[in-house]
């Protein structure tokens, strides 16, 4: 494609932003390139934060991502974008400066959902985990050997933090309103298998329970009060209630965005309020809501590392003139390292009406669960079985019939099909 000597601005300085900027350069774009980041640091890798950094094996500032970008990039770090003027084609930053653009990549990502009571959320000992500073602060708290860690929320981050605390030998209680950990994403059936593994390592599981309020003494957390009246003494609490998308700065821009994400078309361009694409702007990563061709063009937002990479690259190329052969539709994949346990997935479980264990044995702690919907494979989850995932990902990508027939190595005789147990 011909190089486009225009001004490109990337708003956001995380993984999707970095890979998007690299893709622009790789595609031959040699014009001025500016990257805007709210945090005062170069793009860093988040997955190690909840593992290596909390474990103390790696300092938080060592997570800076490898980059293929040269010195010809204007980094504007430490001042977030606050508004977008699509008519004048400018982005305004918090420090008052204005950046003109011809091509704009929006990759502003998410932030941790805070504890609903702001006063309690600010207590000493109460943490969220999203950025590098969050991880450094929580690491300091864990290194001080708290008497008990309370993890609020049994999603992936919650499970990662809880199992890591066990590896550090810290008592930990995980409170999750749902019937099992990970129930929202994996369903009750598989969530229960994984929950049992964590319980076996000493995580105290309080499923079907909810924290009502956090009690302090002199501004320090001392205990949590649950809705059912029980109390948990804890000097550290990690609020792991998911993420909020950074889309407020787009209010007034005329784009179709809300706290659930910014809408994109199949190519990756953002849509305005009337559903028309703005061909100067693309979005990628955790903020991008796009129709997924593998799932009947259902609009999805995926907070996955692989998605940030693949969509970042896609959007970067798109903005500098690549013509996508087909709509963006990478098979969604993610991993979660929970203590020594690795949970990996391909596809989207949403809407599953059945789940089958196709490899291994949940009782042995290693298995693959395949999810079906209306007789087709839609997702697979591998627990400590990474080498079986590619074959299952192929079934999902091909929407192969569910459940799979036939004999296979390490497959239970007669594959049993369960209710997946989505609420």
């Amino acid at each position: 494609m011909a190089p486009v000597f225009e001004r490109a601005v990337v708003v956001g300085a995380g993984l999707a932003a970095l890979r998007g900027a690299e893709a622009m350069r790789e595609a031959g774009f040699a014009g001025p390139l500016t990257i805007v980041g709210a945090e005062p640091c170069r793009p860093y890798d988040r997955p190690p934060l909840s593992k290596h950094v909390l474990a103390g094996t790696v300092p938080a500032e060592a997570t800076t991502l490898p980059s293929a970008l040269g010195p010809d990039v204007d980094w504007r770090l430490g001042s977030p974008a606050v508004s977008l003027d699509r008519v004048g084609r400018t982005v305004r930053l918090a420090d008052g400066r204005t950046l003109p653009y011809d091509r704009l990549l929006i990759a502003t990502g998410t932030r941790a959902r805070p504890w609903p009571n702001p006063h309690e959320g600010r207590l000493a000992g109460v943490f969220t985990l999203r950025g590098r500073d969050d991880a450094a602060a929580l690491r300091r708290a864990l290194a001080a050997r708290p008497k008990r860690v309370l993890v609020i929320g049994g999603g992936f981050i919650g499970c990662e933090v809880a199992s890591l605390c066990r590896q550090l030998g810290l008592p930990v209680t995980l409170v999750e309103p749902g019937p099992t950990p990970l129930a929202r994403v994996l369903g009750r059936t598989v969530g229960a298998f994984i929950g049992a593994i964590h319980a076996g390592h000493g995580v105290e599981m309080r499923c079907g329970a909810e924290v009502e309020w956090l009690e302090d003494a002199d501004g320090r957390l001392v205990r949590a009060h649950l809705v059912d009246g029980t109390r948990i003494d804890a000097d550290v609490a990690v609020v792991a209630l998911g993420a909020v998308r950074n889309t407020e700065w787009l209010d007034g821009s005329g784009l179709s965005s809300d706290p659930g994400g910014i809408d994109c078309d199949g190519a990756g361009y953002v849509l305005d309020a009337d559903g028309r694409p703005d061909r100067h702007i693309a979005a990628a990563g955790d903020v991008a809501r796009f129709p997924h061709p593998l799932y009947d063009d259902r609009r999805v937002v995926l907070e996955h590392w692989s998605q940030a990479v693949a969509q970042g690259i896609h959007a970067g190329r798109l903005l500098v003139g690549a013509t996508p052969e087909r709509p963006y539709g990478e098979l969604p994949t993610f991993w979660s390292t929970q203590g020594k346990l690795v949970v990996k997935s391909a596809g989207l479980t949403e809407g599953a009406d059945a789940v089958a264990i196709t490899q291994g044995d949940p009782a042995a702690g290693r298995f693959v669960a395949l999810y079906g919907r209306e007789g087709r494979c839609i997702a697979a989850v591998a627990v400590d079985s990474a080498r079986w995932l590619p074959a299952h990902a192929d079934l999902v990508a091909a929407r192969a019939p569910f459940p799979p027939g036939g004999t296979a190595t390490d497959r239970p005789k007669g594959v049993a099909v369960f209710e997946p147990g989505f609420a």
Partner: protein
Amino acid sequence: MSDATLLGQVKDFANRANPYPVYARLRQNPVSCQDDGTPEGTWVAATHGTIASLLQDPRVSSETLPPADRPRTGNPLTDLIVKPLKDWMMDRHRVFIFRDPPDHDALRSAVMHQFSRERVQAMRARSDRLVADLLDEKCGAREIDAVDDLAYPLPVTVICELFGVPREDEPKFHGWATQLATALEPDSLSDPEIRAANSRTFDAIGGYMADLIKDKRRHPQDDMLSGLANHATPAGVKMGDYDLIATAILMLVAGHETTVNLITNGLLTLLRHPAELERLRRDPLRAPRLIEELLRYEPPVQFRTRRTLSAIDIAGVTIPEGADLVLLLASGNRDETVFPDPDRFDPDRSGIRHLGFGGGLHYCVGAPLARFEAEAALTALAARLKAPRLIEDPPPYRSGAALRGPKHLRIAIDGIA
């Protein structure tokens, strides 16, 4: 039609020096059924994508031993040597290379637990020393045989030291390794004496190992065999004696011949690409990427066999249940859709996802060791051989089509530095 005989051409010794044109013709059909004299034929996967997929397909089994009542194949190599060897390893003892999970996983985990990073690192330093010593021995020579003088002795010594075979017994292993290799020569297949010798070799190694294991129980030392004989894995897996004997022999057979071939193919390739040899001499840190390209370009294991447990739809064909499969790794490594200009040796290729060590659950256990031994040998040869020239090109090859490599690699030199 020649298509029916392509697998035969792969096995034909006439194509041993350069099987790659036959592979290229096989790749015209990613997966094809080839006539091998049996009614069912053998299914051959020849492209990178189909091989990579089948290596990790749970419907593909490594328990390839034909049932006892299955008709003989008519191929003397298979009937007389390969099958008895597999019978011995499958029926009498359990070897994980021919096992599926969960058995495979438990047995392999026991080996991996002892095949520790520390042990492998120790053998890395040791390989450099051993190579230096072997080259020192040839110091005044004007000609060397890279096989006999270096590539052959190095891996046996490495495996013996790793397992804790007493130094004075190492020559026995050199002899056994040689015997197992000659047993696969085509002219020895019809020779009952050599076949009997082969059988005696198995009994001799088996007997020796049984005694050595007893000794390692009485006097444990810091070596792999002591570890395997005396300690369970964290998950509680501990091999029985028969498993242990068979596994130790597997390591000798699988880890020896292949490493010989990696080193020999490596030197041969470098001598055919003198500019690369010179670059390696000037920059030994090029070795790791050069070795990965070598594992793509001339893999020591050209193909592996498998069996299907269910019918598999792949690349527009259906492989039936119970089919014999040949995964043509060396062909996948030359797949032009994955590796541009695949017949060019180019260590500067980026992201070489070769199939040289297989893939999936059975990925080569000894891969790290093979890499270190090859790095030690090739960097030392590049640094020390003065003006090396191939005396014969192509060199004579051993008979093996799957484990493929030169029998000898004679090189004229002006001396050894």
